[in-house]
């Protein structure tokens, strides 16, 4: 309940003390005078340090006896907090250990990859050696073209480009047709294969391959093409005739391969 205004005024009036003159005169503006400290004040400054420490200790003591802290320590929340912190620390340590172990493994993996990479580089270089390629080509029946047999064409302006484009288009068309024919042949052979024995199927596949490579009329890698046709897979044979067809061999090569 709010007290009446008069009562308030009376109680406040009773609390007012009479003003007294200050013990020390107010500072006036003027030149700075040398500081003179009275002996008593000097003694006070020397005893101020322990006082401050005691004050701090007292403050700490009062903090330790604070109700809020007391409630927190005595409460169950504190147990949870400590448990969470402990588990966190342990988890953090374990994570750190795992991370370091992971780094170790990653470094080992890096070394392994480095080793494998170097080994692959070496193998790649060895496999690309001209003598090896030449020997392999020789096994496949290939020979180096004599220098005099090589012909170089000179591009002669727009007409040649158009011709080349047309040749490429017709070649691609022929190859597509050959592929379709081979696929159709393979489909028909597989259909008939259901009725006949397996050996007959493979024989027909071989024929189909032969037909496809001769129809493309450009198969140059005779031994590759023939080996593919021997395998009995007409699709593979068509693919090989395609690959060979991109070369510059004589058309008769394809017929031989097919045969």
């Amino acid at each position, binding site marked *: 309940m709010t007290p009446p205004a008069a009562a308030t005024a009376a109680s406040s009036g009773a609390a007012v003390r009479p003003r007294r003159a200050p013990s020390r005169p107010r500072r006036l503006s003027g030149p700075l005078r040398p500081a003179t400290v009275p002996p008593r004040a000097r003694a006070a400054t020397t005893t101020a340090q322990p006082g401050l420490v005691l004050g701090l200790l007292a403050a700490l003591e009062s903090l330790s006896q604070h109700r809020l802290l007391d409630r927190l320590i005595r409460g169950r929340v504190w147990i949870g907090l400590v448990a969470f912190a402990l588990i966190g620390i342990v988890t953090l340590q374990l994570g750190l250990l795992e991370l370091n*172990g992971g780094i*170790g493994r990653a470094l080992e993996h890096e*070394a392994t990859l480095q*080793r494998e990479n170097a080994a692959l580089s*070496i193998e790649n270089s*060895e496999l690309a050696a001209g003598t090896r390629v030449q020997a392999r080509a020789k096994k496949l029946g290939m020979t180096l*073209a004599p*220098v005099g047999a090589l012909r*170089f064409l000179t591009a002669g302006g727009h007409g040649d480009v158009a011709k080349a484009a047309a040749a490429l288009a017709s070649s691609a068309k022929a190859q597509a047709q050959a592929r379709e024919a081979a696929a159709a042949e393979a489909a028909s052979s597989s259909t008939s294969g259901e009725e006949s024995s397996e050996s007959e199927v493979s024989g027909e596949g071989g024929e189909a391959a032969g037909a496809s490579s001769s129809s493309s009329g450009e198969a140059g890698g005779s031994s590759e093409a023939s080996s593919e046709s021997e395998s009995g897979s007409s699709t593979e044979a068509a693919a090989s005739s395609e690959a060979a067809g991109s070369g510059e061999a004589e058309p008769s090569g394809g017929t031989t391969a097919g045969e």
Partner: protein
Amino acid sequence: MTIVQRRIGGLFGLFFVLLILAGGRTLYLGALEGGSLRKAAATQQLTYEAVPAQRGTITDRNGVDLAVSEPAQDLSATPYLVKNPLQTAQRIAPFLGKPQDEVLRLLSQRSGFVYLARALPAKQAHAIMAMKIAGIEGKPVMRRVYPRGDLAAQVLGVVGTEGNGLSGLEYSRNALLHGHAGQRHVVSDALGQPVSINEVHPEEPGTPIALTLDANIQQRSEEVLDAVGRVFSPKDATAIVMNPNNGAILAMANWPQVNANDPGGSSPEALQNRAVSFDYEPGSTFKAVTVAGALQQNLVTPASSFFVPDKIQVADRTIHDDTEHGDETLTTAQILAQSSNVGAIEIGAREGKNDFSQWVSKFGFGKRTGVELPGEEIGQVLPVGKYSGSSMGNLPIGQGQLVTPLQMATAYSAIANGGILRPPHVIAKVGSEPQPEPAGHRVISSATAASLRQMLEGVLAPGGTASEVSIPGYKLAGKTGTASKVDEETGEYSKTRYVASFMGFAPAAHPKLLAAVIVDEPENGSIFGGTVAAPAFGQIMSFALPYLRIPPE
């Protein structure tokens, strides 16, 4: 005092005693035993691992690896820690690739340290380390491998056991290729598993280098030289293939061949790159330089006639032509085609010693070509002040001065490319940065170069000294050389020891490829440049021209 209070007091006392004990133990371990324990921990748990830097790869112009680094280990042993040396030797010898008795001898040494193998491939090293034999340790290093073995071995050079280049490009470009090793601080647990890895400083791999060499042309050149070696049993031989228009060296072959993976198996002489280190008297191949100077000064034309007797007297010396003949009249072109010594001396005489000396210098003789290869000789060119009365009797025909094969190839490149002397180069790229092609300077006019090229075609034409060499469809040009070597005992020119050489290019009118073949002291019947070196030139060119898709003219 209640019983609970007594118990609490007892517990407090107990814990206090335990605390005192723990404190005392801590003090003992930390202060009294601290030093030795710290040392033990440092050796058992803390290690500083060196991380070897991968040396830069060397590739050819098409990216084919010519020199690669792979991880390896230096395996060492502390013999007095190996408990059973005999059993250990039996177990590890197969992986070391050494006989058991040798390994046993190493393990039985009264020494604290012995190398079992340097740069052992990582696979074998890991197999040995997996045995966990006490006293055997491995240190990671990098091992240099040359996948093509002897291909361009003298150009690439070799790397020592400490990973530094010792010869060739490995030596001259060591700073680029080497890289910098890193260091790791590893803390391991009691089981030896790393629990903390800190990179003290990271390793910096070496910079890869791409060369102008072409592995296939290089291989073909080496095969051809090998055949020359088998047929003519020379002391040594070298071949250079280069693009005369930019100075890029496509092949630099040496015979005898050296396996770069086992340089110790070859003689130190075989390890030298003779293309840059072989000083020889060029003989008749030098006549092109003599004629070039005279043509450029308009002292002669290709059709200028010279009275050419069989021999000529210069001061106290009489110089003969190679084959005996009567007095005849030859044009400048014929002098070159037939390689007449007398004719070349007459052309040299028209130039005079001062101008001749200047032309020798202008074509780059007597100084390094500037190629990036180490050990390049400068040859030996006589200063004009030291010419004797007979000097102009032998210098114009390539005697009395020393040149290197690369100097000759560079000079012929200037004739081939229209008169510009370009420093040859063998490095195309450093890292991913293409290297700028060295600038050249004009030494003769393009017209003079064209005339000279036309004259040099005659050397391979009927009646020329290399008429048996031809490549169907291509016009070739070049010059043979058969130079007597100086007998060191007598100081006279030997009548049994020669240097056969051939410098040539194709297509003759607009050359795109140049090859030089130099065979030192061929035997077995033939000694001439036209029969020993020129066919080798033909074989190299007949592969390289179509391979590089250079069409005939």
